[in-house]
């Protein structure tokens, strides 16, 4: 940059800053404006020092072997060796045919160029997806001035074709498939990505980004891409979810954006947001602001409607839909205490009641009051806002788990209405029917195609068929895989979303967090356990009735300090299970070397994208593939 340019740039920045300050000064009396950018900004730790290479890798029998460098010619970095040696280094593994070239070429990110053969409205989305693709590539760069180096290419053209440009909302029926054909023409690389929808195209861009790597041996550091590749790919399951609980402990919007960055790198497509629970109500619901006002941990630990909408948009660009869950009638307490002051009566009962072990599964207790008609009015307003905030009306989650009938019985005794019920499960069933009716009204008197409820006593016979309509109810089965729940639901003709606690609960394994009681869900599920869970095979389930899979992270013992490490790379192992559904050997449960190698590469990829993913093993094992198995 010349000196004059710098001065001009500084002037522009200064003027911008002054405007910004005036704007902010003017804004400060109202509310902090959430300014979410669509593109996640990666923070780089620092560029590495430039050192001559120390090791070289040689591909022998489809495995990279580490050797000391003798002399200084022809050293091959581990990244380059891995890309060119047998395994694909793609995660999740594509389901269709893949052919990869055995040569690589160098380029720099400025040579990347998008040509979109796409009409509006998908065109605008694709351009944003391309921007985040670009950021992913930039995140690989470890040397700032590498751009000065000569490259093999003049241009790296990415040509994207989308057949149905009108599809810009993800549905369960959306075709997420794509194909990539990457080939050299003269001193250019052309990567053709073809997809039926935008959502397939963005997956294609993700896969393409995984065919690109940083080679710190090439001219002191260069980007590389395979010289040729073809990939055809589409997912096995259309619902590939990840649940995050933001009620037990709050997670900032920024930390949730990072979750989505990770999800998009793994082609997970449903962010199930368990936004509230009995502990706290951090969601500001525009038509019922009292909920957050009396339920949030602090004014800083809330989600404003604009923030939620921006997050939903952030997710959509990454091929992710947001399903918001305000769990009821149980798991609701703090946030629901304002009824009496406003003349609505008790909206919730047993809130913060002691001894808690009598009235709920963990402190603090709280359940909605099924007898109070005002509860349903509030629910209708709440549902309307949730539908609006998430722009999601194909799938809705109403919670519905772990109702403690003792809590209600105690309350009904107080109001002398206990005699109305011989079986309080009917009260629960009626609550659910009423709530579902309000949801129907909130959705403009339109049926929501898939309404998810957690598995519970209500999702068992005889209540199941009495209260839950199999035409649009999906049961999220969270019990252990040996429990009869899942096969029973399938036998009764229900669609099931699988979240088995013994494999896909990522919060387990940290002991009891209370002074007394059990550590009910120990031990920890290592990534191998997550990966090796294939219930449709293990339990012989009809795959057609399996709505999808979801990994869940409850947040009693995690907040944003360790969120990344708790999720990754285990949620990535889950992602490959539901995207590719690889074969499973149920006699040995052994995992192929290739999976270790690819997952290790992918873990490093997540780290380069700014996620604090857990280490899989000592680095020595990464540098010596196959030697630690």
């Amino acid at each position, binding site marked *: 940059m010349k000196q004059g340019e710098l001065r001009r740039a500084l002037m522009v920045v200064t003027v911008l800053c002054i405007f*910004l*300050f005036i704007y902010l000064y003017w804004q400060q009396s109202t509310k902090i404006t959430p300014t979410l*950018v669509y593109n996640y*900004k990666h923070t780089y730790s620092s560029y590495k020092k430039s050192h001559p290479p120390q090791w070289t890798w040689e591909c022998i029998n489809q495995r990279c072997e580490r050797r*000391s460098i003798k002399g200084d010619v022809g050293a091959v970095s581990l990244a380059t060796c891995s890309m060119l040696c047998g395994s694909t280094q793609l995660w999740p593994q594509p389901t269709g045919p893949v052919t990869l070239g055995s040569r690589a070429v160098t380029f720099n990110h400025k040579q990347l160029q998008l040509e979109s053969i796409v009409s509006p409205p998908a065109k605008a989305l694709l351009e944003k997806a391309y921007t985040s693709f670009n950021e992913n590539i930039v995140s690989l760069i470890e040397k700032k001035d590498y751009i000065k180096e000569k490259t093999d290419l003049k241009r790296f053209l990415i040509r994207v074709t989308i057949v149905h440009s009108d599809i810009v909302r993800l549905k369960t029926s959306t075709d997420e498939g794509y194909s990539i054909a990457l080939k050299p023409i003269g001193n250019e690389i052309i990567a053709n990505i073809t997809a039926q929808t935008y959502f397939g195209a963005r997956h294609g861009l993700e896969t393409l980004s995984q065919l690109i790597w940083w080679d710190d041996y090439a001219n002191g550091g260069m980007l590389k891409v395979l010289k040729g590749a073809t990939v055809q790919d589409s997912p096995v399951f259309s619902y590939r979810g990840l649940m995050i609980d933001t009620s037990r402990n709050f997670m900032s919007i920024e930390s949730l954006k990072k979750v989505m960055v990770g999800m998009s790198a793994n082609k997970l497509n449903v962010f199930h947001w368990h936004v509230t629970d009995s502990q*706290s109500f951090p969601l500001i619901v525009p038509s019922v602001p009292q909920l957050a006002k009396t339920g949030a941990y602090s004014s800083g630990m809330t989600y404003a409607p604009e923030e939620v909408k921006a997050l939903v948009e952030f997710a959509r660009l990454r091929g992710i839909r947001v399903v918001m869950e305000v769990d009821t009638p149980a798991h609701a307490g703090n946030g629901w205490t304002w009824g009496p002051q406003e003349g609505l009566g008790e909206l919730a009962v047993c809130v913060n009641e002691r001894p808690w072990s009598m009235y709920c599964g963990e402190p603090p207790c709280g359940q909605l009051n099924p007898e109070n008609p005002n509860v349903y009015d509030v629910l209708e307003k709440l549902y309307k806002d949730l539908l609006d905030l998430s722009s999601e009306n194909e799938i809705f989650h109403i919670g519905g788990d772990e109702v403690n009938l003792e809590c209600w019985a105690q309350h009904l005794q107080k109001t002398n209405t206990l005699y109305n019920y011989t079986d309080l499960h009917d009260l629960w069933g009626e609550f659910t029917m009423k709530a579902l009716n309000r949801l129907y009204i909130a959705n403009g008197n339109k049926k929501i195609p898939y309404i998810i409820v957690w598995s519970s006593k209500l999702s068992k016979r005889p209540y199941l068929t009495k209260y839950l309509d199999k035409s649009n109810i999906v049961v999220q089965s969270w019990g252990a895989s040996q429990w009869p729940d899942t096969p029973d639901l399938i036998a009764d003709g229900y669609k099931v979303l699988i979240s088995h606690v013994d494999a896909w609960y990522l919060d387990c394994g*940290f*002991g009891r967090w209370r002074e007394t009681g059990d550590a009910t869900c120990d031990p920890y599920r290592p990534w191998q356990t997550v990966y090796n869970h294939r219930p449709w095979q293990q339990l012989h389930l009809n795959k057609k009735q399996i709505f999808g899979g979801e990994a869940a992270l409850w947040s009693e*013992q*995690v907040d944003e300090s360790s969120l990344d490490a708790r999720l990754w790379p285990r949620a990535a192992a889950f992602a490959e299970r539901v995207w590719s559904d690889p074969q499973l050997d149920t006699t040995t449960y052994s995992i192929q070397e290739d999976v270790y190698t690819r997952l290790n590469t992918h873990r490093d990829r997540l780290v380069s994208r700014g996620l604090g993913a857990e280490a899989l093993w000592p680095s020595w094992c990464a540098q010596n593939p196959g030697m630690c198995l």
Partner: protein
Amino acid sequence: MNGHIIVFISVAFTYCTTINGWAWQCNAENGYCTRILSPSVDEPEHPSLAVCKLLCGQPSYLNVWPYPTGKIASEKNLVMVDPQHITFELDGSTTTKNFLQEVVDYFQENLSRDNSNCICQDYYPLVVSLDALSDDLSLTLDTDEFYSLKLNTSDKRIRVEIVGNTIFGVRHGIETLLQLLVPYQNADSACLATLKNVQVTDKPVYRHRALLLDSARNFLSVNTIKKNINAMAASKLNVLHWHVTDSQSFPLELPSLPNMTKCGAYDKDRIYSPKDIEELVTYAKIRGVRILLEIDGPSHVGNGWQWGNEAGLGNLTVCTNQQPWRSFCIQPPCGQLNPANPNIYKVLGQLYGDISNMFPNIGMFHMGGDEVFIPCWNSSKEILDYIKGKPTTEETFLDLWGEFQNKSLRAYDAAVGNDKTSIVVWTSHLTDPNVIQKYLPKERYIIQTWVPDTNQDLITSLLNLGYKIIISTKDKWYLDHGFWGSTLYYNWRTVYNNKMYSQYHKSILGGEVCMWGELVDDSNVESRVWPRAAAAAERLWTNPSTTAGAAEGRFFSHRERLISRGLKTEAVVPQWCVQNEGECSSYL
């Protein structure tokens, strides 16, 4: 312009006007702080939990971690402090003053994190006088860490006097003072609040209060190590046991043995240079932490030692990276030093020489000495030739190992020029009470026990034989457990409840929590270690007769404190339990 800058600025602007929806009330009966909604003007409520916790409880109680062991008295009324109006009076020699100035800088650095540009009103100026009775700047096992702290408010002035027998005691006093200064914000003012009068005397029960970090399985950046040292300082841990090498890698650059990192580092970015070491040693010392370096041997060695043949020194190690690894070691990659090759002692001598130049003399050095895998030595022709004539029994190999240990010790003493250093080794076959005296004289060796809690017999036997020990209860203080094999995770309660073998037994020097590095690196080591290591810190500093339940609220405060100092520590309960003290603790 990007969005992050905008968010940052707006936070700064709205800082003073942030109104929290909750207030806290002190329950005089049980000393708990209770959360209440919509504070009314008449009630004695506090705008933050931290302020409530500062004030709540008996005058003889302080919300400090680890809990002081001496006398405590206080007057539980608030006075306001403006961070801009704190001054220090330093006493002692120039070197003492220079050191204390560094501690003051540390104090200021940690104080400023929670405060914005908001103006504090109605404050009293605070003067802190620091006085170290001795000018001794060395930090060893014998360093006296006692301090007394007196905080007195009169005539609209606050005066704090911290006196220690050494600067390291004074430093602990500063740490306690930091914990007694909590942010106090309301609509138009942001101050620090503290108590009107405080008196504390304090010193640790154990002299060796350590965290082990392993930078060989996975490399840890200098920055990551520093962050851990910061958290140690906040919790008054005083030894960083640095397991710097293992069979996987050798990241420590040695000026006279450049081949070690050349053959052993993962790459040239993952190396600790002598300059890094110098920086870390100083950084740690200011925080009252000494670095106990471990170069493990004869096992847990491999990558880094492969250059012997090329340099004409023969095989320095055997079985390095040998496959199938299960036949030659318990964890890949394999490798053990080659005791048949006399050159290894020359190399070890150079290694020890470099280390004693790079690290200050703390009177201790760790030689590892664990998990020798006899089938490895038994598979080497060279070693079998060396022991020729003797039967290949376990006893023969133990003798060989003992011989190695003895020669290593001599090499060490020769390198440092005296025989005063205490050598720490892990428990192993060699420390079996039946044979230990044959190999490891008690005058020279400290034994670090890593047996499970059930194996108290070993500890008893070693103590009876007169050995000094450091305790690292494997099934309570191994922080890597719970993520591999059939091991279980030990949460902070289990860590805290690890009662030390026998209180005040003079031969128990202390204990260590161990963070083995197979499954952690820069990404997650902080949250794996913290706040659990802080639970061990109180066990070692205070060794209370009570269990975790009694420390809960104070521990939660300390976790929040570590977060406010920028450390990514794991959450241990729902925030609701933090905000509603005592409500999650039991069934009732």
